[in-house]
């Protein structure tokens, strides 16, 4: 039994988040991903926290570990002619190249798609960038917050009278990475049959406006002329929906579907309220949501989170806990499905990381391989090209690997 992509070879020129997440997903399903890093310093994520024990060290970044599991790592200096020549040798033996340099970089190295496709016509070359390979903002600098701002989500995120909010973490870059993995595999699916490769141009800001969520927000404006509003969870016409307090924490209630309304009253043991004209229909309760909150909130505050969630779930109402990160890691459902996987790293020891986004029953269950140390697989990979140990010493002395 083999993994889905076990015969697929990927050359990985990515760094930071979106690109490495794309190639991590390909590696998760068995592709041989060779991560190419700059000699000496490597991927910038090696210098991004969290670090094990808060010790800043290129082999102790948990962020780098998470984004680069299951890959092999080599070093290569693409700013030297010899480095470019070696890269082209590697490229002839690959199916997929993923890169996430600023769009001007690959052409400046003589490694544009036109040139590379002549060396390897079946090559799928995925280029991931903040704004895409063309357009007036192509060379603009960006960080997570400046990208997120230019999608349709930030303007409507937050409270009335306050500033718009970005989402926590690096959601834009991860999303672009997920899109890039899907697009890359799609392009490879046909190139592996007809031998015709192509370039895939992935843009982080365009991933924000794509279906479903971004496109949904945009089409709402296209149809009604109304822009996003920062109204927190108080969305007109939708009730109850939001974060609610309980005795020992918070829960999320999603009760806006009309069929849920009688179930909610049953959950609370207040079916009598169906006789109350403020609450007797799904419309009426929307109109009188403040009155209903005045009944719901004290009732919730007498209950623990577990009690509230379990009794609501017994009525088939989507009521769930608001977990803090420690609770996510301890959750029985995730653990029953082994979503968190221990990764054994030569420097960091054993680290529990989020595992595969999904499992394939037709693929073998294998332990996750740790992210590569800087240049860990130089000998193996360059050995395939015929370089001997003595050659590698010379290349190292010349700063090429």
């Amino acid at each position, binding site marked *: 039994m*083999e993994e*889905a*992509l076990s*015969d697929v070879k990927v050359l990985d020129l990515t760094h930071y988040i979106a690109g490495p997440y794309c190639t991590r997903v390909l590696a998760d399903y068995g592709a041989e991903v060779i991560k190419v890093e700059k000699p000496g310093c490597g991927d910038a994520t090696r210098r991004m926290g969290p670090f*094990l024990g808060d010790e800043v060290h290129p082999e102790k970044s*948990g962020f780098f*570990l998470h984004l680069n599991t299951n890959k092999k790592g080599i070093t290569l200096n693409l700013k030297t002619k010899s480095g470019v020549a070696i890269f082209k040798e590697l490229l002839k033996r690959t199916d997929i190249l993923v890169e996430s340099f600023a769009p001007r970089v690959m052409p400046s190295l003589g490694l544009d798609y036109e040139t590379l496709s002549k060396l390897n016509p079946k090559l799928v070359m995925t280029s991931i960038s903040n704004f895409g390979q063309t357009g007036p903002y192509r060379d603009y600098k*960006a960080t997570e*917050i*400046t990208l997120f*701002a*230019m*999608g349709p989500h930030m303007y*409507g995120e937050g409270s009335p009278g*306050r*500033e718009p*909010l*970005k*989402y*926590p*973490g690096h*959601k834009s870059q*991860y*999303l672009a990475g*997920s*899109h890039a993995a*899907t697009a890359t*595999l799609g392009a490879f*699916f*046909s*190139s592996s049959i007809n031998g*015709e490769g192509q370039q*895939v141009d992935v843009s982080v800001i*365009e991933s924000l406006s794509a*279906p479903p969520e971004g496109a949904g927000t*945009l*089409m*709402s*404006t296209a149809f*009604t002329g109304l822009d*996003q509003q920062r109204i927190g969870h108080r*969305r007109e016409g939708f009730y109850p*929906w939001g974060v609610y*307090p309980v005795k020992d924490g918070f829960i999320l209630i999603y009760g806006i579907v009309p069929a849920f309304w009688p179930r909610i009253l049953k959950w609370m043991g207040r079916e009598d309220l169906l006789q109350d004209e403020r609450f007797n229909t799904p419309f009426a309760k929307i109109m009188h949501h403040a009155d209903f909150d005045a009944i719901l909130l004290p009732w919730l505050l007498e209950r623990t989170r577990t009690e509230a969630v379990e009794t609501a779930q017994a009525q088939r109402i*989507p009521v*769930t806990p608001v977990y*803090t*990160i*420690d*609770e*996510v*890691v301890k959750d029985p459902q995730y653990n029953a499905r082994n*979503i*968190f996987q221990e990764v054994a790293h030569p420097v960091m020891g054993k680290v529990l*990381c*989020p595992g595969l*986004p*999904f499992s*394939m029953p*037709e693929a073998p269950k294998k332990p996750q391989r740790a992210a590569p140390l800087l240049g860990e697989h130089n000998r193996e990979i360059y050995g395939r090209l015929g370089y001997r140990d003595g050659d590698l010493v010379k290349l190292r002395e010349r700063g090429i690997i």
Partner: protein
Amino acid sequence: MSKLPLTGIRVIDHGIVYTGTAATTLLADMGAEVIRVEPINILPPFTRGMMARPPKGIPMPGYVDSDPGERPWDRWFQLHAMQHNKYDITLDLSQPKGVEIYKRIAKISDVVLENFAPGVMDRMGIGYEDLKAVKPDIILISASGLGAVGPYKNYAAVGTSLSGMTGMMSLRGYPGDDPTIRTVMPVWSDNVAATTAAFAAIAALYMRRKTGKGQFIDMSQAETFLPHMGEVIVDYTMNGRVAQVMGNRDQTMAPQGCYPCRGEDQWVTLSISTDRQWEGLCRAMGNPPWTKEERFGSVLGRLSNQDDLDKNIGEWTKQQDHYEVMHLLQKEGVPAGPVLTCTEIFSDPHLEARGYFTELTHREAGTHRYPGNAFQFSKTPMSIRMAPPCLGEHNDYIYGELLGMTKAEIEALKAENLIGDAYLPEVF
């Protein structure tokens, strides 16, 4: 021109709400023939409205010009956001004959993609074993909220629920806020689950080419999303640190934030990570005296004096246009971007230059611009080949051309209310 990458692959779209629906659109955009199967005896939530026949005469948000019109289900924004390039048929699966017809389509399909709660497909008689019996190498992707096995497999869980259970909601707010005011929509995880479900379908198709076997993929939407929370999860498992709300701030970049601009409710964002970028920002602001203060002169100084920094920068940005701030700062090599409304995104010059939007005239909705994808293919460009389908628009084509039914047989299905192009009169 070469064919789109997934040409020749047939997919049954049994998605509800966002995840499955958008996953199959992605496959359709890449060339798959996607057949969306919809009921007419109930209204599935969101994709065609919240009510089959909303009241007339009052403005109804979500419909074209806030007017539901004669066919509300074809004029609803969520249909138009994520259903293009698909065939749409109707079929009542609560009738045995509906199930029998469904299996005839499954028999000539490669992938079935759905995101019901676990067990729903089985109860309808179209679970994996049922489908496998008619098409031995079928691929079934089931993208439920929490997965089909495990102690919470029967939880009622929608996207909102998952934002709580993945830890996202615990971090989504202003520092020190009351969590009950936090925004719950959009929910975000659907973006990730949809994209990943499409990936799973292609991976399984590739595997099938090698092994000849299909498979059933029990996907949990929450699990597809947890890797996107990876760095905070690893910080907890390595260091025992539980992440806290950061708002617009960053651990190592300062100043970073969202600042008011000229005009009503206009904002710009910027991030500074190096001394050089800081100097660039100061130059762009005209080097006001406060920027010379020693406490702002180093990375650590800026990180520990963010409130004052933000106040001072805000005083400058208030006088400026948000787009202008971006262009001005970009000239200095400083990352900056305006916070855009949807109206501004539709007219953004960069997206325009890249041809991101497609103008489309729809039979029931009129002419509008539709957003594109996160990616473009160089040799097989994707496009909106088919407008978002009206309910049951392709019944005649799919039942007639594909399944070979006669006109009389199709008419009989209509008469028995198995198929149609409108919800049955009693549907709310």
